[in-house]
């Protein structure tokens, strides 16, 4: 609740900071400070210091899990802002507004991760989506950005329609929007209305989480959007949607697992397949990363599929690892002039630090041990295996993970083993150190997951 209210307030503050401050640096500083405050406030709530004591339990419950994820999301956003706010300036003149929108999105994320009513979920998703439509189209002169915004908007609205149809059908069946009310005795036959509604919701959430076959918007939108915002969209937002996904299907439809788990399994397979296989042939790193984000979504979806404690924890670790690594890569990417693989040629010679950090991030994404990414994948696989479910799916997943190595390592190859022209990649020391910190975090989580996990366990 702390974070929700404050992020809304900070959003408004940022709106006006554009009027108050003339210098972009001040706006950035304000934004970053506000984000730090937000992080602190959220951590306070984890420590049971609540500023707002309304009873909102009909609509949302800020449990530890949600709060922990929010902390991760806010922290990741903080890192993201530090790393890429310089590039944000270049997108357009409305820096303050971008910051405001990002804060609003954070508010949406807090809603999405802690809803107890489908209404809150709907609002949360919309609060996330609408600013994203705008951020996607924020590079107004750029036709790619335009196209991406239009596609995103049209398809997003379409999926909203589907989601609403699902909610309506569930309401018809249950007479309530609360996810706690949807309890069936296992014996009774589930009404078709309910199943249809659930499926509609599944489709809509899959769309937001870019799960195949509802992923089609993702490559185009991620590719077309300004790189800085792609970074945000592909990481924090997507992870948040997954948290909502798990909450919805664990909370509301937990009893119907036998019905939907098959479809989720099929979707996992399809997502992994499409994401990884298509990424192989990409020529642009940015587009490759957008396909890879689809592929990663396949792994994240395991958290939904297995629907056990390990899966939920895994989702947290996975999203943390995924967010940090992807933000790191996008931060470097957004500083590059050439987004193709060739653009990375010889980066290690001229910018060893950037190359190194990118490598660590890529290794993490590829799931190499001793990085956070490995731990994420490990948790997902562990959850899936201990779930005793479909082991062929797990094997398929690891084969696809191996395919993913192919395209991630293409970047590493380009950076280290190929020669290229000297590139002037302007990275300030602050950014470099932040990248280094990101790498250290990735490795620390990978090597000493206890530290990370204990936090989670103590907070419970």
């Amino acid at each position, binding site marked *: 609740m702390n974070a929700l209210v404050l992020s*809304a307030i900070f*959003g*408004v503050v940022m*709106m006006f900071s554009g009027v108050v401050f003339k210098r972009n640096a001040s706006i950035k500083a304000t934004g970053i400070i506000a984000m730090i405050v937000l992080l602190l406030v959220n951590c306070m709530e984890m420590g049971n210091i609540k500023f707002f004591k*309304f009873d*909102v339990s*009909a*609509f*949302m419950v800020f449990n530890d899990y949600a709060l922990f994820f929010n902390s991760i999301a806010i922290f990741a956003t903080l890192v993201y802002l530090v790393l890429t706010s310089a590039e944000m300036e270049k997108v*357009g*003149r*409305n820096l303050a*507004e*971008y910051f*405001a*929108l990002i804060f*609003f*999105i954070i*508010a*949406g994320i807090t*809603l999405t991760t802690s809803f107890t*009513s489908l*209404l*809150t979920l709907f*609002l949360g998703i*919309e*609060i996330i989506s*609408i*600013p994203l*439509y*705008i951020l996607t*189209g*924020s590079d*107004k*002169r750029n036709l790619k950005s335009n196209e991406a915004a239009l596609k995103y908007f049209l398809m997003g609205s379409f999926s909203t329609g589907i989601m609403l149809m699902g909610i309506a*059908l569930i309401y*018809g*069946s249950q007479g309530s929007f609360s996810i706690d009310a949807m309890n069936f005795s296992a014996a009774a036959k589930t*009404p*078709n*209305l309910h199943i*249809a509604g659930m499926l509609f919701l599944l489709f809509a959430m899959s769309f937001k989480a870019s799960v195949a076959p509802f992923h089609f918007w993702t490559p185009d939108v991620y590719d077309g959007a300004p790189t800085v915002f792609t970074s945000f969209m592909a990481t924090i937002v997507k992870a948040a949607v997954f948290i909502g996904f798990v909450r919805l299907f664990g909370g509301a439809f937990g009893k119907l697992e036998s019905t939907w788990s098959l479809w989720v399994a099929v979707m996992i397979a399809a997502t992994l397949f499409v994401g990884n296989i298509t990424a192989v042939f990409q020529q642009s790193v940015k587009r490759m990363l957008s396909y890879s984000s689809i592929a990663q979504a396949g792994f994240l979806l395991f958290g939904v599929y297995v629907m056990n404690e390990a899966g939920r924890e895994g989702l947290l670790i996975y999203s943390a690892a995924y967010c940090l690594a992807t933000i790191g890569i996008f931060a470097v990417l957004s500083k590059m002039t050439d987004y193709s693989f060739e653009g990375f040629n010889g980066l290690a010679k001229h910018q060893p630090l950037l190359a190194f950090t990118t490598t660590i991030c890529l290794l993490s994404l590829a799931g190499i041990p001793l990085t956070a990414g490995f731990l994420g994948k490990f948790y997902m696989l562990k959850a899936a295996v201990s779930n005793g479910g479909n082991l062929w799916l797990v094997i398929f997943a690891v084969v696809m993970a191996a395919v993913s190595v192919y395209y991630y390592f293409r970047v590493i190859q380009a950076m280290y083993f190929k020669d290229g022209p000297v590139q002037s990649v302007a990275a300030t020391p602050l950014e470099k150190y932040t990248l280094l910190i990101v790498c250290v975090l990735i490795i620390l989580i990978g090597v000493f997951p206890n530290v990370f996990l204990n936090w989670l366990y103590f907070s419970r």
Partner: protein
Amino acid sequence: MGITQILFWVLTVAALFSAIMVVSSKNPVHSVLWLVATFFAISGHYILLNAQFLAIVNIIVYAGAIMVLFLFVIMLMNLNKSTEPVKHKWLQIIGILSGGCLLLVIVAALRNTEVSQHMVEMSTGEAGLIKNLGRELFTTFVVPFEISSILFLSAMVGAVVIGKKD
């Protein structure tokens, strides 16, 4: 067959017909107007269901404000002629087919659902009255209501960001 039933069928036919016309009109302006007609038919249904508040809001917000905005944009862009290039015939057919199938499948799936024979309370009931809704909205639903302000804010900021000339 009472007057309610007759009205129901009339409104249903009107809604469906005008909805089809929205999709099939060549001229965007006509589409907008047919959409307004659809909204009116739906509002009629609301009234039949004794949900007066929604009926009014639907007409004011949707038919009134939103559709006018649409019309406005279309006029602005001078799209009143049918400038839209036609899609491939077979793409259209596939579109219609799949839409139709979707309808068939879902209807078939939901035909025998448990609630199918439940009656909908027509013309009576207090749930749709402004008083009840207002009370609920500002007591129980006050949190979502406030939250929707964030939505509006962001939409506003967004519209400004996008719409402002650089």
